[in-house]
């Protein structure tokens, strides 16, 4: 046993920097990440007005889960995450294939697809709010040319969430495309040549070569856009503020409104719940997707 211990210690010393070397990073990590994390866990168990707090155990969590709009917020969050993430996978892959082919002005087209990613989310939200205005907006003006009266995109509860999701996809698909372009470009050309020799048509080459070999790209896009979708807030807040009423509330906007109302303990509890929720969905998903990748 002693020899093993000694060996272990020696190896640790040999492999690492002296331990004081870690100290600055550890202090920064502790102050900026560890302390707030534990402080928020603590305050989620209190009724907190910023001026004083009283310990109330798990009452905040009970309250949070009994919020009448929380259930809707959860459902909306899931719909939003799945719709945006799914669309980004499909559109990102199609655009990726298009932009890796010998299309004209490829560089320019790639830049155009990526451009919305660079624009500020709030700016995009405000712009689309104007475009989607039911009576003065450009979108409905265009539809009116065809003699159809466009709906109130952002204020009709049937369309509001999907309208915001559409803008999210428009803004985010560029990133998915870039990831796909990288994934598709890295597939060796020999596979396509071999498939062609065997007489595979374009669709078969896509299905049997591109799709399975671009799997790492798909995994990355799904996980990134799902996390983004689950904790989405800025675009929804800029476009609908969760409205009309509560119809486009997601978990993050419910939490934000509680914070605005001064229920600091309650909204901190909400953030703890959101953290657990995102982790509970994304960790197993990434595990499953990555394991299959290894097996494949």
């Amino acid at each position: 046993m002693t020899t093993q211990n000694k060996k272990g210690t020696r190896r640790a010393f040999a492999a690492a920097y002296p331990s004081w070397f870690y100290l600055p990073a550890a202090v920064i990590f502790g102050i900026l990440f560890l302390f707030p994390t534990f402080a928020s866990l603590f305050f989620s168990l209190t009724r907190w007005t910023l001026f004083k707090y009283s310990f109330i155990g798990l009452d905040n969590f009970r309250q949070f889960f009994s919020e009448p709009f929380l259930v809707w917020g959860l459902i909306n969050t899931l719909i939003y995450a799945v719709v945006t993430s799914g669309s980004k996978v499909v559109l990102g892959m199609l655009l990726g294939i298009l932009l890796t082919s010998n299309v004209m002005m490829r560089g320019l087209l790639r830049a155009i697809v990526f451009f919305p990613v660079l624009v500020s989310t709030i700016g995009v939200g405000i712009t689309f709010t104007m475009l989607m205005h039911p009576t003065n907006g450009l979108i409905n003006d265009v539809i009116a040319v065809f003699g159809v009266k466009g709906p109130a995109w952002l204020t009709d509860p049937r369309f509001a969430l999907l309208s915001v999701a559409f803008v999210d996809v428009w803004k985010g698909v560029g990133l998915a495309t870039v990831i796909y372009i990288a994934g598709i470009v890295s597939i060796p050309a020999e596979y396509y040549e071999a498939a062609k020799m065997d007489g595979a048509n374009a669709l078969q080459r896509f299905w049997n070569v591109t799709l399975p070999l671009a799997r790492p790209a798909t995994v990355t896009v799904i996980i990134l856009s799902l996390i983004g979708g689950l904790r989405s807030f800025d675009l929804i807040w800029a476009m609908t503020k969760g409205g009309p009423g509560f119809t486009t509330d997601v978990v993050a906007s419910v939490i934000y409104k509680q914070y605005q109302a001064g229920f600091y303990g309650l909204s901190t509890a909400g953030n703890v719940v959101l953290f657990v929720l995102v982790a509970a969905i994304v960790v197993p998903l990434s595990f499953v997707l990555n394991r299959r990748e290894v097996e494949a």
Partner: protein
Amino acid sequence: MTYEISRRLLVAAAAGSALALSFATPAFAEVKLTFLVDNAAATVTASEALAAAFHAKNPDISVEVESRPGGGEGDNIVKTRLATGEMTDVFMYNTGSLFHALNPQQNMLDLTDESYQSDIMDTFKSVVSENGRIYGAPFRTTMGGGVLYNKKIYAELGLKVPKTWPEFMQNNAIIKEKTKAAPVIQTFKDTWTSQLFFLGDFYNVLRAVPTFPEDFTANKAKFATTPAAIKGFEHQEEVFKAGFLNEDFGSASYDDGLRMVSTGEGVHYPMLTFAIGNLFETYKDNLDDVGFFALPGDEAANNGLTVWVGEGIYGYAQTEHPDEAKKFMAFVASKEGCDVQTEAIGALGPYMTKSCTLPDDVPSPTKDLVSYFAEGAKNAPALEFLSPVKGPALEQITVEIGSGIRSPIDGAKLYDEDVRKQALQLDLPGWE
């Protein structure tokens, strides 16, 4: 069990940044006060006029006006700055229920013994007091919550100001039939504007159930089970169902609403009368086409107005210049202060200082507003001045009811749930 958060810890954190700043402080004796107000154009204009007038009178004290957003975002800024010890020397904030949420005894200067208190109306003192001590001085005017209406269209159609709800609906029907204007303007892009049918009806609620505020605060009365209290929601649903709203009610903004009511694109706009200030700024030429009446209830004989007591200004308890801050607040609350405000932004309503008077040529909606104060008994404070309990989700609920997404009774139940959180946060007896 309740714990106070150590102020020393916050001060220690603030001291570091203060140290860095102190090198830049000039050496002469002029005292500089900071004054935090909301960023509504009329507020900023009035505040700057007051600061300039005060400085002219007291050359050794200058006042710097800082602005912040209004609404929930502003609440957070005020609370955060108080909690971190970064508040300005004097700041403007609501009176009534929101005032109590700021923990006045810990955060504000005590103004009880100031000499001008005898000149301040009791209505105002009651909404800035806690445990018998007064913490606020009046700023700006008292408002009414009712209906701004276009008098030109009323004159064209020969309509009379409605005293009961059926009369109001009848006027709407005539307007819809005979003009292109929208009978009722709603502007749900700015969600707070959706609450007026409900909050402005409180005079009528109080007439029907005089004990409602106490019972509501004590968790004994509920909106969902008090028929008189739910009428505001029902009225809102009625105007939606009758198709009286402007077409873009869901995406129109408060500014759109002001434009519509002043130019005659719409006729009735349920609103607080502070909007007269914005009309004065932007639609001055049309201001005399606009009138104001209280939200009508059941009986014509008892028609009256729901009143919002004006904002208060408060001195920060940790200020380095308490005497100068008090001097500035005394100036704002004096007749001189009222006159400076009237000159800067027009006469918007009655002041809470007894010696203040309004000029004779007030704008038309202000004249209508003031008439509800002349008759003494024909007005009552809004619920938020009689009870500290106000739910934060009301504006979303009224948007849903006003867009036909939720029924009034459902909305009332949801609101009863919503206020519970506020009552718990305030630690009121009778709630759990």
